[in-house]
């Protein structure tokens, strides 16, 4: 199950509303965020093996890397990785990579990025899926992307109008032909109806590859080695 951050911190901070007559007994405690020493000690005992497994550095963030709208360094990386790996696996062109950004838990500060960081960045076990979609569905997909104010997408360039719709949509530097078929790399989660991209839900063809998306990111970040905060203008306003 995915995380639904229904929590509003604004509410939380004022969440001491008392409906009770026992106000005098009410917490707050001042000391409970401090870790319990016994549990900390036990947990620390498990860390060396955790770090041996997960501490291997794969890349270095040279800047702070974030998800942003309409496009962002991390948004571009996570969608590029799917498209490029998909093409490598199939041995033929994959036109588009797409994934929702709500699955991702971290941004990166400058410094080394380890395997463990990637696993925490993308905590879900999903596999790579290649969908074949009509050009008509591709346009629908890009319009959904635009309605979000821009979301991670690879292989597509477009402009968001002030009304929030996409115009000037190019795939592989060409105008989309509604009749043609295009290949889209995404995750099993998105293909199964997560991420809320309905344009993906009725593909002409679906190919499930037994490749973990987390492993794809470990490999792809590794191939980038040093990562700067650079975008390429694929989504403009």
């Amino acid at each position, binding site marked *: *199950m*995915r*995380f*639904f*951050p*229904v*929590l509003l*911190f604004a*509410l*939380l*901070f004022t*969440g*001491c*509303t*008392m*409906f*009770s*007559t*026992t106000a005098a007994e*009410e*917490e*707050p*405690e*001042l*000391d*409970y*965020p*401090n*870790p*319990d020493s*016994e*549990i*900390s000690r*036990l*947990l620390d005992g*498990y860390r060396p*093996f*955790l770090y041996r*497994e*997960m501490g291997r550095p794969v890349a270095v963030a040279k800047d702070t890397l974030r*998800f942003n709208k309409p496009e962002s360094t991390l948004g571009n990386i996570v969608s590029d990785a799917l498209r490029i790996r998909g093409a490598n696996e199939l041995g033929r062109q994959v036109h588009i990579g797409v994934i929702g950004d709500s699955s*991702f*838990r*971290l*941004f*990166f*500060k400058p410094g080394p990025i380890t*395997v*463990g960081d990637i*696993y*925490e960045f993308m*905590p879900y*076990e999903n596999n790579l899926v290649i969908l074949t979609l009509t050009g008509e569905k591709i346009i629908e997909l890009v319009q959904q992307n635009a309605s979000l104010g821009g979301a991670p997408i690879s292989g597509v360039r477009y402009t968001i109008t002030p009304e929030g719709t996409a115009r000037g949509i190019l795939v592989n530097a060409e105008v989309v032909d509604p009749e043609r078929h295009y290949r889209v790399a995404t995750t099993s989660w998105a293909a199964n109806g997560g991420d809320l991209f309905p344009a993906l839900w009725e593909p002409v063809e679906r190919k499930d590859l037994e490749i973990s998306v987390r492993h794809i990111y470990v490999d792809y970040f590794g191939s980038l080695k040093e990562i700067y905060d650079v975008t390429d203008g694929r989504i403009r306003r």
Partner: protein
Amino acid sequence: MISRKEFLKQASLFSAGSFLIGPIAGLNSKSDISPAVTILYTNDTHARLDPFPSNAREFAGLGGIAQRASLVKKIRSQNKNVLLLDAGDVFQGTPWFDVYGGSVDLKLMTEMNYDAMTIGNHEFDRGPDGFAEAARKAGFPILASNYFVRETPLNPFVQRQLVREIDGFRIGIFGLGIRLQGVVDRGLYGDVRYFDPIQVSQRMVQSLRIHNHCDYVICLSHLGYSYNDDKIDDLKLAKQVEGIDLIIGGHTHTFLDAPVSVENSSGSKTVITQMGHSGIRLGRVDVSLSDSSETPEIYSRYYTVGRQE
């Protein structure tokens, strides 16, 4: 002047919310005692043993099992009768799970004296064998009343219900898991069979109240708080089954700032609560039975664990 960061820091320390519900009508009426039981609970902790790191997109600095443990210890020092419960999905979410498969979580929950948990769908992420291997570290019962596990390696670790007597006040606890089909890969849940939560709950309530003479019945549910379709959820369960006093829910990661009270056809009430996910909050329900009232009163609140960054 206080800086914004300082304000946020302090605010998180003071963010215990609280609500009074009650009196709650039970099916039973008995007892001349005035017990007080404090129920502490979590759900969907998802391997969040360490607090969210400072580069988390949300919740940086919050959560952490050692932080939760210190809070639980504090509450135990102030209250004699404490139950500590979890509504499932302890597994999956951080590298801790990738490396240790949930065994560290269950070991530390045992050290904290958890009394019981139910099974979440992510408990099957490494199949019944992976779950069973980690479950050997659990020194508390895993309650799953609507999963039939006899043909699986989980059998030694799973039971259908638990009765705790505290100062003569009998508390019955049972657990409900979500329909696995469509949520967990077929190959991962193996021979675990799912049964209808409504029918199972009716039998559990009857067993706990009538045969085990329980005064208070708690359901640890991993069904999810609310769905728009016909799928069973905690709200529908509370509406359709009478005799459950408290549903501690999970799966949908719902942050209920206040518990929700649902009245069912017989007029009895069930209180539903859920604490979001990742151990960001620890929930607390104090149950008391006053001399004047024959129905338990509850007082509900939550604590935010960790330090907002």
